[in-house]
């Protein structure tokens, strides 16, 4: 069964002056798939996300997101792809609900439809009680929940999440991972998940890609990655952490 492709890049390159941030990246994400996007700080993950959303122009290479070219048609792409940036902020003087209402309006939802989606999203991320407090008073974990609620009301076909579990309490992490998994399974939403929390990635990702210094050094399911290269010493299945570290010990 050939899955439908939602993201496809070929030879994607971005240079800033003499520095190459992303170097010949070829990436594929299928529909309904949770793709873990890993790599050390400064590996080029954020730059890749910017290019996928059409927020910066690639120096070379081809990108296709749900049949659109983000550089030429950023609006169509952003209508279908919702992104939760790592350091996203909210309007501190507005309540959580007002922030969400603004997002709903920016997405062209009328107020009635928007409000019902907001209620549903707040319930799913567990932010109903805090919804009418000012966003400035939110803790890191609550902001993260608000961010997820923002993605939910947009009903995207694809979500890009940058460290969605950072700052959440353990119950929150379990709830969020469950939420992501059910979105992917039931609504066929694809997820590109950037995270340094390897155990979370291992728990929910179907496939992972590992980036280092602008290059994709590995891509595949956990089994594929564990199988390639060195055999695990004691024959046990390797965890993602061991796999990940293997790519950086060699370098």
């Amino acid at each position, binding site marked *: 069964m050939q899955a439908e492709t939602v993201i496809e890049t070929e030879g994607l390159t971005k240079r800033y002056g003499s520095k190459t941030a992303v170097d010949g990246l070829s990436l594929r994400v299928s529909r309904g798939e949770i793709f873990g996007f890993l790599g050390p700080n400064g590996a080029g993950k954020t730059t890749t996300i910017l290019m996928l959303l059409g927020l910066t122009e690639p120096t070379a290479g081809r990108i296709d997101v749900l049949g659109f070219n983000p550089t030429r048609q950023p609006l169509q792409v952003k209508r279908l792809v919702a992104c939760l940036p790592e350091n996203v902020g909210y309007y501190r003087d507005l309540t959580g609900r007002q922030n969400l209402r603004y997002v709903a309006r920016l997405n062209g939802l009328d107020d009635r439809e928007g409000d019902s989606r907001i209620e549903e999203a707040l319930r799913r991320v567990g932010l109903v009680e805090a919804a009418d407090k000012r966003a400035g008073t939110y803790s890191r974990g609550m902001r993260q929940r608000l961010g997820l609620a*923002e993605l939910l009301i947009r009903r995207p076909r694809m979500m890009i999440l940058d460290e969605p579990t950072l700052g959440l309490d353990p119950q929150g992490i379990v709830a969020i991972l469950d939420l992501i998994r059910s979105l992917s399974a039931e609504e066929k939403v694809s997820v590109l998940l950037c995270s340094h929390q390897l155990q979370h990635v291992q728990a929910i990702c179907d496939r992972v890609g590992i980036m280092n210094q602008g290059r994709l050094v590995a891509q595949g399911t956990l089994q594929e990655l564990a199988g390639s290269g060195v055999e695990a010493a004691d024959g046990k299945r390797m965890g993602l952490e061991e796999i990940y570290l293997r790519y950086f010990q060699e370098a």
Partner: protein
Amino acid sequence: MRSILRKELADHFNSTRFLILYCLVVCVSLLITNTVSLNIRSAMASGAKDPHLFLLLFTTSGHFFSLAQFVAFFGPLIGLIMGFDAINREKNEGTMSLLLSQPVHRDAIINGKFLAGLIVIAVMMTSLVLLISGFGMLVVGVIPTPDQVARLLLYVVLSILYLGFWLGLAILFSILLRSIGTSALAGIAFWIVVSFFVSFGSTLVANAVAPVEHRGDVEQIQRHARIAAAVSRTSPVHLYTEASDVIMDPYKKTTKSFLMMGPLEKISLARFDSPLDVPQSLLVVAPYLVTILALTSLCFAASYWIFMRQEIRSI
């Protein structure tokens, strides 16, 4: 774009900043009408008759400022205050990444912000003029003629454009400079330079380029004055002051200073001492209006261009 505009407007009208500015506007209008109307009343009592009495409300300075002077000097601060943190606050708080990941055109953000600021400025300016008119009518008891209403309208439009220039400048600084404090300071520094130093500078330049050696040499005096005027016109404050003078004072025939007129012109001026009608005043100020409009558009265009090219890395 419409939802951004709506949100920005709501932000402005709910902000403490707006409340303070608006209180200030009301206080100023009260103060001005109070001092000015006293002057006007005493002038009327002594038998002076001026068909354009109503406009004097805006142009006469009491112990303090006239409204026109007030707007020329302190209006820029209103524009700067409305815009100095427009873009960099959103960047610093991370809300810019939120906005940019929504399906909106990038220019909608900056258009919405500029337009919202302009609307707030228009509201302030209009209410300022209306307040003074209202108080003036109550205290002095004169009613404006249609001709004067047209002049006031023109004046409001000119003022909105002028404040729009400062708003555009403030937004430009907020795009260029990352820190909110720095962009506020840059705006204020620019304001001080154009409103205070340019007028000193114009005399200095004129003294250097065309020194007046003999007091009686009309040619030399004219040249000196012409250069000084040209230099001071590089300042938007000066442009605005000259233009608003012409609009509000029907006896002002020309924006040239007295020194620059030949003797013949002076004679003709004295002989035909009749007010200009509105279209003619408009004709005189048209170049000024266009220049201020051009400056405003220039500021906005520069902001637009830079903002569209900037990469927002905080994502």
